[in-house]
């Protein structure tokens, strides 16, 4: 009888811990989804990647992100949001006037990314498939390969970064 009670308690604990972990992950995804929807950029059909690049943070990671962005800005499968722009002029000089004023580039001038609790020194990438966020991750120095993955792998097939 005592063993049964103990098992039930342990079971509850395990379920509770798992639900905590899942809700933690979900919370991050919900925030990202809310952030992206604030810019009204999620179509119902097809696959595309939302790439958020902080202008301030890990300089090598940001350089890689901006390099990726410059060559792909305007392509329908990629949406770019630049955030944490503490020095607009520096950012404009670094990316060039054409990129800075490009209609497809979204500038998060009110730091909504930070307000949503998503702030990081690394770029963040979310892959949407048919209107649903499928994969989400930060591109830190150990995940540099992600830029190649985004280029070479069918977006709907990307399950993790």
């Amino acid at each position, binding site marked *: 009888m005592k063993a049964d009670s103990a098992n039930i308690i342990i079971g509850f604990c395990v379920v509770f811990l798992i639900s905590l972990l899942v809700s933690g992950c979900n919370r991050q995804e919900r925030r990202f989804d809310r952030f992206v929807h604030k810019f009204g950029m999620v179509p119902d059909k097809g696959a595309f990647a939302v790439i958020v690049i902080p202008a301030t943070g890990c300089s090598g990671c940001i350089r890689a992100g901006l390099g990726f962005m410059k060559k792909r800005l305007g392509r329908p499968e990629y949406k770019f949001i630049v955030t944490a722009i503490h020095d607009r002029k*520096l950012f404009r000089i670094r990316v060039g006037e054409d990129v800075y004023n490009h209609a497809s580039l979204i500038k998060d001038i009110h730091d909504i990314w930070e307000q949503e609790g998503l702030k990081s020194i690394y770029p963040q990438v979310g892959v949407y498939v048919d209107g649903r966020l499928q994969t989400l991750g930060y591109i830190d120095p150990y995940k540099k390969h992600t830029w190649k993955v985004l280029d070479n792998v069918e977006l709907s097939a990307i399950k993790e970064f």
Partner: protein
Amino acid sequence: MIKFVCLFHCIALVYTAFSLTGCTNGNGQGAKTIVTQYALVKEGAVELDLAYDLAASTSWVQTFPAASPEYLYFFHRGLNTASVYDLDDYKKIAELRWQLEGPNAVGPSVRSGYIASWDTIFLYSFSAKRLYLYDSSLNLKRKYIAESEHFDAGQGNYLRVSTQMPLQLISESLIFSTEKSYWNDFSSAYAAKTLNLVTSQWGDKYPMPQIYRQGWYEHFHTRSAIAINYKTNEQIVSYAASDNLQVSSKNHTKEYKAASGKMKISPIRTKRPTKFSIGDFEQYYAHIAATGWYAGIFYNPWKNLYYRFGYYPVKGEYKDSRQIFSYPFVIVLNHNFEILCEKALDGDDYLIDNLFVDQRGLHIFNKRKYEENEDKLTYDTFVLKEGQ
């Protein structure tokens, strides 16, 4: 009558005791707070021209030559370019643009360094762990390799070079401010690393003070910053978690209390955690935000004053690491390290990583004015006023 004399003696005794405690301090030697009222007052501003293709982001603003400054040197972060201004009229007199490719190039990650003279310019790359020496034509004269600073390498302090933690040159050695690593014991840690420019040998300088042995401090709280008084040849070290300044000369090392009246810094733990974890950094930031910290120390040779900078504790809930820079302040001290006044600065307006001192006073970059006009670097000027 006897009672009256006793009462008089008691009052005199109490008065003497109060006077003594007001003028000396248990922690620092000879520390005093001056009775005369002083205030640091905003008085005008300095506007520097900024080229259309240069921006205000910087980690390195310095006047030179160090002993008797004539010029202001401003390194534009991310653009590998420096603007040089004359301190007399604040006109731009030179622009130094480093190559991004070729034999004289430095990597894009250079953020700071030290200019000793027009012909002796050091650039430091934190990520490449290299120090580059250039002449006035921006020809690369020599490279120095920094000691290993990898997280997993154990031992050693991380070199830190910025406006608030400037490099200093003493005879033929460069002095680097540092941040202590997890692996160093405070009892054997030093505040600075020295690089002998002739022999390329690295050394240690300024043993960390007693306060760091009373608990375990982390990250920004283990930083040091150094100023040099070329008139007295004193080296002044400000520690991020210490109320005291450590003043070294040829013959002695003394401590002077130079504390903000609005914060009390404590260690995060009693002893070193059992393992190093990057995951712990967020709680370190939260602790630093909750307690405040001292950032740097500057000497003004024209006014014979010191400015000690820091950040007050964050009010309210901790949200992210950037909060530790929210509430800057400055303490002004005279040449005897007596506190003259303390001033809170508006963190929405001022960046204390972008400032300089000259004959007119203390000039602090105003970021709000830069947002209004991106082709000017505007510094608000602060001067010390008596009887305020």
